[in-house]
């Protein structure tokens, strides 16, 4: 009985800790994803009509770019309402 209660309290406190840590890192996560998006956009600029680096550079790095390309696609989907996105990120309701 006591040990079960102890486990629950412990899990509760752990969750609070995780939530706080996640909240604290949230903005940095957004910044990181934006940077990854920019990286992919610069490298694969020709997709969107941007000036792009020499083609072979994109070809050289393509095999390692899965994550960045996924973020690029996610950003492309959500860019209709970037203002709402940013407000959500910085906690304005």
């Amino acid at each position, binding site marked *: 009985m006591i040990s079960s209660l102890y486990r629950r309290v412990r899990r509760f406190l752990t969750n609070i800790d*995780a939530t706080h*840590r*996640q909240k*604290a*890192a949230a903005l*940095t*996560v957004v*910044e*990181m994803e934006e*940077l*990854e998006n*920019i*990286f992919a956009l*610069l*490298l694969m600029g020709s997709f969107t009509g941007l000036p792009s*680096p*020499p*083609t*072979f*550079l994109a*070809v*050289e*790095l*393509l*095999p*390692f*770019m*899965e*994550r960045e390309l996924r973020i690029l696609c996610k950003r492309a989907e959500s860019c209709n309402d970037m203002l709402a996105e940013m407000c959500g990120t910085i906690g304005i309701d």
Partner: protein
Amino acid sequence: MKILFFTGKGGVGKSTMSAAMARQLSQQYRILIVSLDPAHNLGDIFGVALNHKKHRFTDSLYLKEINLQKLCRDYLQRETRVLTDTYRYLQTINLDNYFSVLKYSPGIEEYALLTSIEETLRSENDFDYIVFDTPPTGLTLRFLALPWITVTWIDRLIQIRRDILEKRHTIYRIRGVLDDKETILSYDEDDDDILKRLKKLKGNYQTLSSILQGEDCGIVLVYNPDTLSLKESKRLIDGLYELKLPLRLLINNKIQQKYTAMADHVDSAMRTLAPAIPIQRVAFSEALLDGQNSTLYDIEETLLSPFEMK
């Protein structure tokens, strides 16, 4: 080892002049002459079939024509292999062969040319001179500019990549690992495949850039005594100056007796464009027109290497 690039407008006689200089230098030195022009005629000039392999013409003169198509194909095959390895699971549903479409990527020729120069310089270091006969101005300037443009792009990409890794590290420090299923993103420079690849590429291009801009490399500009040739040479000189590539010799080729005034005019314009660069004059060879049995690399004039003139 000295490196010479023969450049100029199409049809001015770059191949003939490079062949003639290579032949003359081979009396004293060990020479390799390499044709980078997709429309090769090095074999025609020396009257041999080259088949894209190094050919021994004399003990001190070797000839080679670069097979641009094969280089492009090899490069893209290599990249396609890496990509197919990464997406190996696609093999189970037979979709991996769709990556073969990469072979139609534009802009690969310049890269393939540059790679062939890099490989030649690395592997053929028992020669005293390597003479490159290049394609006409446009393509030549594009591939000579490639190391510089690429390093500029790579620098910027490395900077962004470092920022990404720094953010990843910060996130890891704040948040740690939330559960067992979470994949930890690499934040160390030595663990990041993209950064490692970028650094390796930068190293290669910086080395190549420093060779091309160095003391032992020289660009020889071949032109004809006519206005079009003069205008294109001006563009080429501007391009070389921007890329900090060392122009070392000018050759005014195909001078005819009756047009010497024009030749003088073009030479004086070239002296203004590139002061202190020596000019050599080569007369138009009548033997080429009247069908005499003449070897094309044999010219009457003595072509001095710009490195000998010092």
